[in-house]
């Protein structure tokens, strides 16, 4: 087993036999000709054939990889018609009395060099296009069929691949590409992504690999030649998981999260960092039900400034567009090591000076975050949520502070959403019991089942000894959830779950029967939950 490294172009796994494609670059010899006119006619004829071939390729690409990727062939056609290209070739034939093959090769190389020396990567990649066109015309002149046919499924290994080569191959037999040259903006890379083919570039290739069994690991940029049993088994599993995920995606992406009976719920995702955004969108979440803001505080040596916070919240809001983004305010305690907070040691951090308690006690920290959140609310669909609530009094205090912050911003002439939705997390038994009162003061409830379970069962979820005691389906927890939802509805507000229990598909039907309005889960659980909802009566 040998491993080689390269740059991954598309994240996926391919397993199969290698087929080494050595470019049959036409060996062009310079010969002297006598009849320039005849030679020019030869050239024109070959050019015409190449042009027609490009049209066929364009249509094939259009069908297989869509318009924007097929466009490259249109570009080739245009380049083929370019005056400078044609004039230069004809000039050479006339003035130097050389054969058309040579004239085309020299002209093509010259133009390719011009592109290769340009500053911009995009233009440098066009050098390959120029070579492709020249090769095509030359192969017509020589009368050879330069197309490369695949007889069985294979991983294509080559020094470089021209887009036309990739399009010409039988798509059903293409497993992956591995090339030595090329860039991530080259057409081959673009095609690989479009065709969902694992691909690697920048791998030092060896013609001796031809026929060998290999794995292309597009996740880690690895080419594994003749993998051993364990490695192969590992990759086969990843491939299987990938396949299942993709099937699910195809089936459920863009579909509504609605039961057969027509009950619709909002299905959102939980994230802890803006870098998770792509996962949110990939997995087709309808919004963000919990955006943990702690990363701003944890990743820093000092309190994040209003500007820093504002930029982060704004970015998320803008990326999500009209989709809801529920941002939870600071939820930190002594159990998280954040030195500059000076929280000191606590015997019982889970029940200590944390979250909203810190915010109400040190209001400048709270105000800074609120200012940033409100400012960002002008750029998208932001809602705010307060953690660890145990009393109506807390909520009233919060609302007073928010009111002051809003007045401040108004005086400063800063834009924000005056009607921003403000919800509270129900994660304490106290909040559950007085949820009827709390519902009158909040715009929504989001149930934090992890902490709720721990506090309700009086069992530390981090304690391994208690694993058998902590029953996440405990009737006390389920009844709490049911009560909270009922009380929310009585007051006319919506209720959702952002804790891990939301992703427990064995409980989805139960939650639906309680009247849950929203579930917010880890991005990878979005589609599985949607599937269960859609399969429920």
């Amino acid at each position, binding site marked *: 087993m040998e491993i080689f490294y390269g740059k991954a172009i598309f994240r996926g796994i391919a397993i199969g036999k290698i087929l080494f494609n050595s470019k049959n670059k036409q060996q062009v010899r310079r010969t002297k000709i006598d009849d320039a006119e005849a030679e020019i006619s030869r050239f024109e004829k070959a050019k015409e054939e190449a042009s027609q071939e490009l049209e066929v390729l364009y249509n094939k690409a259009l069908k297989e990889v869509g318009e924007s990727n097929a466009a490259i062939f249109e570009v080739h056609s245009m380049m083929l018609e*370019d005056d400078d290209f044609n004039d230069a070739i004809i000039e050479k034939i006339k003035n130097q009395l050389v054969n058309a093959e040579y004239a085309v090769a020299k002209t093509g190389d010259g133009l390719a060099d*011009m592109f290769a020396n340009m500053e911009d990567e*995009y233009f440098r990649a066009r050098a390959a296009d120029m070579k492709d066109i020249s090769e095509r015309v030359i192969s017509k002149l020589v009368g050879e069929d330069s197309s490369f046919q695949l007889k069985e499924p294979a991983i294509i290994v080559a020094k470089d691949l021209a887009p036309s080569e990739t399009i010409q191959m039988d798509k059903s037999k293409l497993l992956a590409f591995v090339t030595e040259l090329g860039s991530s903006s080259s057409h081959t890379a673009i095609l690989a992504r479009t065709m969902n083919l694992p691909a690697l570039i920048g791998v030092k290739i060896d013609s001796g690999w031809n026929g060998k069994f290999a794995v292309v690991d597009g996740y880690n940029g690895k080419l594994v030649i003749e993998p051993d049993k364990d490695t192969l088994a590992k990759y086969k599993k990843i491939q299987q998981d990938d396949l299942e995920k993709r099937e699910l995606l195809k089936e459920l992406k863009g579909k509504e999260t609605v039961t057969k009976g027509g009950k619709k719920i909002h299905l959102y995702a939980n994230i802890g960092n803006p870098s998770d955004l792509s996962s949110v969108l990939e997995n087709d979440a309808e919004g963000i039900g919990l955006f943990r803001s702690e990363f701003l505080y944890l990743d820093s040596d000092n309190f994040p400034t209003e500007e820093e916070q504002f930029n982060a919240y704004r970015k998320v809001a803008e990326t999500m567009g009209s989709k809801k983004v529920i941002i939870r305010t600071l939820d930190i305690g002594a159990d998280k090591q954040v030195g500059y907070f000076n929280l000191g040691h606590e015997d019982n951090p889970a029940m200590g000076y944390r979250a909203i308690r810190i915010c109400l006690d040190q209001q400048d920290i709270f105000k800074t975050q609120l200012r940033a959140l409100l400012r960002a609310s002008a750029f998208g669909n932001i809602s705010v949520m307060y953690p660890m609530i145990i009393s109506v009094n807390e909520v009233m205090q919060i609302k007073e502070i928010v009111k002051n912050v809003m007045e401040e911003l108004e005086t400063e002439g800063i834009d924000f959403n005056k009607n921003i939705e403000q919800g509270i997390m129900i994660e304490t038994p106290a909040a559950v019991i007085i949820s009827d009162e709390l519902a009158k003061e909040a715009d929504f409830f989001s149930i934090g089942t992890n902490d709720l379970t721990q506090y309700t069962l009086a069992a530390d979820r981090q304690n391994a000894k208690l694993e058998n005691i902590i029953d996440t389906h405990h009737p006390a927890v389920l009844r709490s959830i049911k009560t909270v939802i009922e009380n929310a509805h009585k007051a006319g507000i919506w209720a959702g779950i952002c804790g891990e229990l939301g992703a427990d598909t064995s409980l989805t039907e139960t939650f639906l029967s309680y009247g849950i309005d929203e579930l917010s889960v880890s991005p990878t659980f979005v589609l599985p939950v949607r599937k269960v909802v859609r399969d429920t009566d």
Partner: protein
Amino acid sequence: MVNFNYVITDEIGIHARPAGLLAKEAKAVSSRVVIKANGKEADASKLMAVMGLGVKKGNEITVEVAGDDETEAAAKMEEFFKANL
């Protein structure tokens, strides 16, 4: 001669595809259309030459149109740029 300036807004600048379409447009009018950018110039009907200018987003170009249909042609060219680049 009629000329106008234009600032490129396309992310990739004057790349192959619009350059090709530009060449077609330029060939369709009888006036001669010249693109001036970054201290260099190129005949708009010559795809490779235009690409060779390496015009990027944010670059300002000057388009010079000279010929018997120059006013009409210049208007067409300006429309083209606004729509494609």
